[in-house]
């Protein structure tokens, strides 16, 4: 028989204990479980997608089943930013500022084609080609607009992500790492484009490698 202090308990043993009414868990699991089931989104709509976001919180789709029905009007009380709709260059600084005002731990869902990439309005001079140029996006929900079910699926994916987060080490969330400032530079309207055009910390555009023949 091995030394009891160094034995790690297996999944089968844990299930066996659970059958006897004994629940063994870790702090990490408990912490993540609590956070993943009370993700409070910011009451923040930009365009068409916002209507579907509202629909997701209404009777048929009922986002309350996921513990996320509390749409907070203030960023200080929210931990999920659903960027729902077209982010224009006039609006982008405000979006980043709201993100900075949200306390950590916080998450971001880019809802719809516009928030992801500019969508159908990508050609427009005034449309930001994706909010992930300025703030880190956890889950992308494609669609134009995505159905409320798609947003709920995105939320479930986010919950999975939260549950899998370690509390220490290099993969720990931003707010538990000393090296991450958690504050993102707010762009300003420059002469022709936003300054800076993107945040190199969060957005790394693919480099095109060309064979010079």
């Amino acid at each position, binding site marked *: 028989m091995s030394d009891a202090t160094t034995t790690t308990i297996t999944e089968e043993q844990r299930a066996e204990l659970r059958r006897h009414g004994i629940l063994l868990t870790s702090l990490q699991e408990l912490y993540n479980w609590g956070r993943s089931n009370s993700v409070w989104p910011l*009451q*923040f*709509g*930009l*365009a*068409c997608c*916002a*209507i*579907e976001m*509202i*629909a997701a919180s*209404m*009777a*048929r789709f009922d986002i309350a089943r996921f513990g996320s029905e509390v749409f907070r*009007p203030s960023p200080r009380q929210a931990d999920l930013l659903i960027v729902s*709709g*077209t982010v*224009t260059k*006039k*609006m982008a600084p*405000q979006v980043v500022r*709201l993100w900075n005002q949200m306390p950590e731990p916080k998450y971001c869902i880019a809802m719809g084609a516009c928030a992801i990439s500019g969508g*159908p*309005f990508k*050609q*427009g*001079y*005034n*449309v930001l080609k994706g909010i992930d140029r300025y703030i880190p996006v956890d889950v992308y929900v494609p669609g*134009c*607009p995505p*159905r409320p079910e798609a947003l709920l699926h995105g939320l479930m994916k986010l919950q999975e992500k939260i549950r899998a987060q370690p509390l220490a080490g290099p993969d720990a969330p931003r707010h538990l790492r000393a090296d991450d400032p958690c504050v993102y530079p707010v762009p300003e309207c420059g002469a022709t484009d936003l300054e800076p055009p993107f945040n190199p910390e969060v957005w790394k555009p693919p480099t095109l490698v060309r064979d010079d023949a």
Partner: protein
Amino acid sequence: MRAVHDEFHGDLMEVSMGPHHPSTHGVFRMNVVLDGERIVKLKPVFGYLHRNHEKLGEGMTWLASMPFTDRLDYLCAMTNNWAYALAVERLTGLQPPERAEYIRVVLAELTRLLNHTCLAGFLLQDTGAMGTPLMYAFREREKILDLFEALSGSRMMCNYQRFGGCRVDVSPAWLAAARKVVDAYPRFLDEFEALVTGNEIVMARTQGVGRVAPELAVAAGVTGPMLRACGVDYDIRKVDGYGLYPRFHFRVPLGDHGDTYDRYMIRVLEMRESIGILKQAIDGIPDGPILDPKAKGRGLRPPAGEAYGRIEGPKGEIGFFLVSDGTPNPSRYRVRAPSFVNLTILEDMCLGHTVADAVVILGSIDIVLGEVDR
């Protein structure tokens, strides 16, 4: 008006409401100058959702703009489609078959129900009735969206109308389903009215708030339920008679105070009229084709010229002004958006009221920022 320089009210305060504010219906910003709680000046700031709709329309083929019109006023995709299709049909001389005209009326009136229901929910949300009325409204919205989805494949962005007709035909089963929704609608309206119309708080918050004089409304170009709430009898379905509207019997409800409560009531009454039109249209729909045989989607090159197509959208007159020079894309593409024009008298409506009233007044204008900023 209170003296500005007395001991307690020495300074005016300027407050920027929005662009992120729970009650601005999206990304709208109001710069209000306050004397205590009273608004003495108000400046609306637009452009936070400027998506270059009109400029993009000039770079695309005629048909390619159709899905973009859905995204103008994202609660009323079907009526936006119709206004654009109407303008192109005037430019090209295409004539939709009778069945298509009937389908258009059915869809436009369903859209009107959808829009007014959502507006009533949002307006009540703005007065502080958190949740319940909006829940009721969105429950009904889902029923109409189910119809749109069954027909066009999409809930919100239907992309359904075509130049000279419609994209797909309606089935008898769809018509039966639509009839069922329409027949059940008065019961929802009764329920909603029992909750809201006679409610003491609603009346206190909306009656006499945000009055508009009919002269001002006409001078500013205000259209739709907002104009009719002032008592001006102007409905494009009656005065311009597009589509098959002259065939249907319906009345145009008019208000007489021009306040927020009247604007709410006009919408409820309009919904009841829409139900009547829908019953006539669903029952009278003839068999036949749904597309003009000369219709051409891709590669359409209308003869050089200009056309303006306008319809009575749920929010007011929505019109498309198009100029063609015979090429595959418009040389000028301009939208006359009701939300934007109706919003221009916001300051006149809000002066002398409190900030809390301004929120309700803005809610009663029924703006959609996709259409205001374009």
